[in-house]
């Protein structure tokens, strides 16, 4: 019998508890497996096994650094050992599939490495985790060092020359020629998102706000399968609340989950993939003739990126919802917002909130302490935040220019809102006029954002400038 919303709590209690435990273990195992199963193949030998293993190893180390389990030199409790054994067991189990030829690529794209190598990697991970726990666990201030190290790794993966050097290093380690190394060799699935979850946990720990999390809970949070590829980036305490809540399968959540998956799949696989045929790209940007056609390509790109990303998010939220986890929304009709500030409150919301919490707010607080003028603080805060959001997608001039475009846009809107506040307030009694201004604002905002995509979609600034020239017939 399945518990439903109408089941009496007393009758459902025991069953719900069992389902909650099963859900917790199930999500943990599913997420660990997904790290391997979703990782694409790479030209570097066995990297489709080693990079997911590195994701898990780093997750365990970050957990150890944020946990109090090692801080007092106590031995880890049984639950921790069980969780660690489960992760190690899954990893070794996947590696052992290499001996079962028809199943050797059941989870990973290529045959896994030798079990002995994997055992050694697990042993090193355990030692590093204990070290991280004992060194950083006792000194919360040291979390900053770990955050910097993780950001450096993220930088390596986002900055093409360094990624190429990293690829060369990995190639040599695997006995392959470094001369063939390319930045495209390293496709570390979901690293940007996982890394931001690690940093969120480390920062919350440093601020004393991170709730105690078991290894199983932390791993599930960091590499949560539905959100592994493209987010959203949940906050640890919010995710934990859902994970610890009693769970019973229920039809409303399941049907809503299926509905979100269907909507997301339609957005992604029908609309976005269709618009991809028309969307602005490096090739057609140089070939399109006439301003009208160029606008069509830009509009197609604007909707394509929204529907693609929004579709993925819908599917992630839908899958999580079936398991009783309510991932945060990432989009809230962003192209209908009447100004850029509201756009950024409704576009990739979890990323924007992450930057607000861990960069913008601390920065502006620090600048206020130095008694900087308010407009200067706003300018520096918004521009640097948006440039960082830009280069999070890749350390290139165009991503930085995209960030700058939005940073300056947000600053200008902030100043305008400040200037027009009194005048707009006076219009509150004229709803039609207010509606017209709002509609005009939405149109203007959409076009500002769409033009911003010209930086984002293309690989170099000269090409983007060429597109702007064509768009405006210059």
């Amino acid at each position, binding site marked *: 019998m*399945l518990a*439903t*919303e109408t089941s009496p709590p007393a009758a459902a209690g025991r069953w719900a508890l069992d389902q909650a435990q099963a859900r917790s273990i199930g999500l943990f195992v599913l997420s660990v497996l997904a790290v391997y199963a979703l990782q694409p193949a790479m030209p570097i030998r066995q990297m489709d096994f080693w990079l997911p293993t590195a994701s898990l190893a780093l997750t365990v180390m970050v957990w150890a650094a944020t946990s109090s389990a090692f801080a007092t030199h106590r031995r880890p409790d049984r639950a921790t050992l069980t969780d660690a054994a489960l992760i190690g067991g899954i990893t070794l189990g996947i590696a052992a599939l290499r001996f079962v030829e028809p199943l050797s690529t059941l989870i990973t794209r290529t045959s896994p490495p030798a079990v002995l190598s994997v055992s050694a990697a697990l042993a090193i991970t355990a030692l590093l985790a204990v070290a991280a726990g004992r060194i950083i666990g006792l000194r919360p201030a040291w979390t900053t060092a770990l955050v910097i190290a993780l950001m450096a790794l993220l930088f390596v993966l986002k900055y093409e020359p360094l990624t190429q050097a990293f690829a060369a290093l990995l190639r040599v380690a695997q006995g392959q020629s470094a001369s063939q190394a390319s930045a495209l060799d390293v496709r570390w699935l979901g690293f940007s998102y996982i890394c931001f979850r690690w940093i969120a946990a480390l920062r919350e720990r440093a601020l004393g706000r991170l709730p105690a999390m078991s290894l199983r809970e932390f791993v599930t949070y960091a590499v949560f399968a539905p959100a592994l590829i493209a987010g959203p980036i949940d906050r640890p305490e919010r995710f934990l609340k859902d994970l610890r809540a009693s769970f019973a399968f229920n*039809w*409303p959540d*399941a*049907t*809503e989950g299926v509905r979100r998956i269907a909507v997301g799949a339609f957005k992604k696989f029908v609309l976005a993939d*269709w618009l991809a*045929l*028309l969307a602005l790209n490096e*090739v*057609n940007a140089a*070939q*399109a*003739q*006439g301003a009208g*056609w*160029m606008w*069509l*390509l830009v509009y197609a790109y604007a909707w394509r990126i929204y529907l693609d990303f929004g579709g993925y998010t819908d599917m992630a939220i839908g899958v999580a919802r079936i398991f009783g986890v309510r991932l945060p929304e990432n989009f809230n009709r962003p192209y209908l917002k009447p100004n850029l500030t509201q756009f950024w409150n409704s576009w990739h919301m979890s990323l924007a909130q992450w930057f607000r919490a861990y960069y913008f707010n601390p920065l502006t607080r620090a600048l206020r302490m130095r008694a900087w003028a308010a407009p200067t603080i706003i300018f520096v805060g918004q521009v640097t935040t948006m440039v960082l959001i830009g280069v999070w997608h890749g350390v290139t001039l165009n991503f930085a220019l995209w960030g700058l475009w939005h940073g300056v846009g947000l600053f200008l809107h902030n100043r305008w809102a400040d200037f027009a506040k009194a005048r707009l307030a006076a219009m509150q009694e004229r709803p039609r006029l207010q509606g017209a201004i709002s509609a005009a604002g939405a149109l203007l905002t959409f076009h500002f954002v769409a033009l911003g995509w010209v930086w984002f979609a293309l690989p170099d600034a000269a090409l983007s400038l060429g597109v702007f020239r064509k768009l405006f017939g210059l």
Partner: protein
Amino acid sequence: MTLDARTALRIAVKALLLFVALNLVFALTDPVPALGRLSLYNVLWPGRARLPYGDDPVRAYNLSLFDLNAMFASHALAGVPKRADEFRVLLIGDSATWGWLLRNEDTLAGQLNAMRLKTADGRIVRAYNLGYPIMSLTKDLLVLSRAAAYRPDLVVWLVTLESFPADQQLAHPIVQHNAEAVRALIAEHHLRSRPDDAALLAPTFLQRTLVGQRRALADWLRLQTYGALWAATRIDQHIPEAYEPAQRDLDADRSFKGLLPPALPKDALAFDVLDAGMRIAADAGARVLVVNEPILVSTGRNSDVRYNFFYPRWAYDQYRVLLRDHLQSRGVDYLDAWDLVPQAEFTNSAVHLTPAGSRMLAEALAKVIIGRG
């Protein structure tokens, strides 16, 4: 909205029934041909200058599909009513006519139109490229049977020996996927190809359902979508900066399609298809000019044995005689342009021309067209 298990099940069953019903209706009504006639080309986007074909859709903004209705509906020919002062010339042929590695303005049709030719009675010559990159006379016949409705004054049919082997006529996807039309042509013109040939596909009931036809529907949608990029860029083929040139040094192989010297049997070639094309053109009130298209005449190794990768000398020489005699016996206009273009003006194949080579052929053709007009 709150759903209980029963409601969810009811919705699932209804959705399944609807899905099955939709597939049944689709299979029974077969709306794909009718859908193919609906086109954004010549309405929202300009018509294409050549029939859709493309192995690299993302870079060519073009794709290969099998729906002749959709292919013709996307062509500029379908969007231009024939004017009283127009002398309409349709060019039928293979990839050389379609213009492999050539921009539209460099194809034979493009070059002819650029010449702004006028016939003796003052009509303006307007050439339409209906080439398609497949070497089969039956494919040409299929195209011609559709094109005849567009009131041509002259059909220029560019042929080469590679399109003639009788046993190869049906060995091409575009022919196989238009089995019904090909069977009708076989029956009407008593062609030697067999209507029950296994190469002509007979879709099963499942293949006619919505699910079975998803590829055809997706192709139709992609064709309409790529129209915007065709309009925006006027590009319909990805032309690489470098390509492997056609082979000049050849193997000392005297065989042609399994045939060996001394004689090329006439019945091994599909002259019956050529005759059927003449009848179709005549029924449409058009004259036909058959052109033996230029081939690369190599001077490399073993060029005493072969002209090029495609043809051993003995077979090609005999083919030219057979073709000339056949057309002469039927009073059909004929231009043998086989050695018109020097070997330097061929690109990646023994029949693909450079813009300059295409220009040479266009100039030769122009003289004949004006003479016939």
